[in-house]
């Protein structure tokens, strides 16, 4: 059998595939962060909490309303988007004129409120969400057995990421959004409802986080704090990619997932921290991030 570093190739490929699944989540989450930051200038610390909220929405939708996975895939992000919209109108819009640190602190408080409430209502033990009927089973790829659901996660993430990238970088709507960030007052004088655009952007970013949460629900335990350590990794991903760069967020999310998977094979003890180590190296060599402009 072929081996690399004394490890069978099949094992490496298997871990890389799992790494890619993780990377799919990193990409989706850092994409949402990059959209919110790039268009609104707010670092959304509540992203991990919104991700957990998405998973809970799917779980409760199933338990209380009998909604299936496919409905949840649309309904949960929609519900979280409404919440995000409300949070933007009630709270977040007041900090745009302040130094960006206040946006970070505000959303941090928001994250504590969301996670604390989920914890109080549903406890910390968590619950599992069944894999939908149509995506059960596994494919034999020759070098590994890939559960179909994990393949679906990778596919869904890539499709959504490409879609969001296309909307923001290549459509008129995206151009309007970018213009709102560049010069909101001027755009408003053209008759565009800029405050609405900002609210919709935060709602959209929240929906992306929630979508990641629904996608994750069948593969991990749904707990109130499922997003709180993930969001730190995603922050590191964003620092590596260069904040505000949407393509950078997608590419570095997937890439770092792969690297993390590879680390699990060669030096498992370091797999928890490898992303942070890479971040340190990038900071030394290229402080603006791999795709950042500065």
């Amino acid at each position, binding site marked *: 059998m072929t081996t690399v570093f004394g490890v069978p190739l099949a094992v490496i490929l298997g871990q890389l595939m799992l790494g890619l699944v993780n990377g799919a989540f990193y990409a989706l989450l850092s994409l949402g962060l990059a959209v919110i930051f790039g268009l609104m200038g707010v670092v959304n610390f509540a992203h991990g909490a919104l991700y957990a909220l998405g998973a809970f929405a799917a779980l409760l939708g199933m338990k209380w309303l009998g909604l299936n996975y496919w409905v949840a895939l649309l309904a949960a992000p929609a519900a979280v988007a409404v919440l995000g919209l409300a949070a933007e109108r009630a709270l977040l819009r007041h900090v745009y004129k302040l130094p960006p640190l206040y946006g970070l*602190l505000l959303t941090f408080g*928001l994250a504590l409120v969301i996670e604390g409430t989920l914890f109080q209502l549903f406890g910390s033990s968590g619950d599992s969400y069944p894999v939908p009927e149509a995506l059960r089973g596994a494919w034999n790829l020759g070098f590994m057995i890939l559960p179909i659901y994990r393949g679906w996660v990778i596919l869904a993430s890539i499709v959504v990421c490409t879609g969001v990238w296309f909307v923001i970088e290549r459509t008129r709507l995206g151009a309007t959004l970018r213009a709102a960030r560049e010069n909101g007052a001027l755009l408003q004088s053209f008759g565009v409802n800029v405050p609405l655009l900002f609210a919709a952007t935060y709602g959209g970013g929240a929906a992306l986080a929630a979508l990641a949460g629904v996608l994750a629900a069948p593969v991990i335990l749904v707990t109130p704090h499922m997003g709180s350590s993930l969001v*730190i990794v995603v*922050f590191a991903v964003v620092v590596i990619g260069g904040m505000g760069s949407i393509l950078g967020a997608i590419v570095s999310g997937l890439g770092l997932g792969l690297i993390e998977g590879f680390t699990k094979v060669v030096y498992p003890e370091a797999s928890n921290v490898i992303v942070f180590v890479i971040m340190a190296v990038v*900071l030394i060599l290229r402080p603006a991030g791999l795709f950042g402009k500065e």
Partner: protein
Amino acid sequence: MNGTRIFYVLAALFALCVPLFGIYPIFMMKLLCFAMFACAFNLLLGFSGMLSFGHAAFFGSAAYATGWLMTAHGCGPIAGVAAGVGVSAALGLVVGALAIRRQGIYLAMVTLALAQVVYFVCLEAPFTGGENGLQDVPRGALAGLLPLKSDLVMYYAVLAAFVAVYLLIRRIVHSPFGQVLKAIRDNENRAVSLGYDIDRYKLLAFVLSAAIAGLAGSLKALVLGFVTLSDVTQANSGEVILMTLVGGSGTFFGPVIGAALVVTLQEYLSDLVGGWVTVIIGAVFVVCVLAFRRGIVGELAARTFRR
């Protein structure tokens, strides 16, 4: 300014007489440790304009170092605490050197990520006791003579350390070095154009803040007699930010008041509302950012000057 002096005399009298009032001494010591932690954090955020989202790493690593040396190696309290401060200062040098390569929110994210590395190290390392943490950390005796086992002696030792740190921070901020830090905080580019090597100033501020945060952590390990993973978590980093923000960042006494409020809140509120404390803390964060950015002391000072 006379009012300020009277306030300090009253505060000092209160602190000295606390044991007479029958306030639980452990609670007061814990409060002083967190007040010191918040003052250290404030040196960075309030006076140098750097928001570290990973200060628990310094607090916790020093607590672990002290706890480990005193439990497993029979170190005395002075050596143990000094080693803790050394560890946190060294860590501050590494984290600071990386973090100051970016500014503002990026610096916050970098410190958050690096603190997470420290958390994982504390979780996995063989000498930290993993999920259990370190239990039964002895207090030892000061210079081999004064037994710190007595809460009264320990209280005055912690109080003395706190007063020393408080005066040190005032001295730092009022020194030429501190003036440069404030200049960097207010306008970084201007400080550069005036010819200051701002990276050196920022790094030194970072190391000083980390070292003081470490002192607070080490003392906390002695006071409570245990070190747990919660000392190095992100939640702890968040709380110190809240303390500073509530009390008034960029004021000297604000972080002390903020720490007193938050620690008291946690102590008494958790009996009343249980786990809702996290939600309340989050809500206080939101309110502070939206309506109360100067904090209690900052707000009071602004009113006095307006009059």
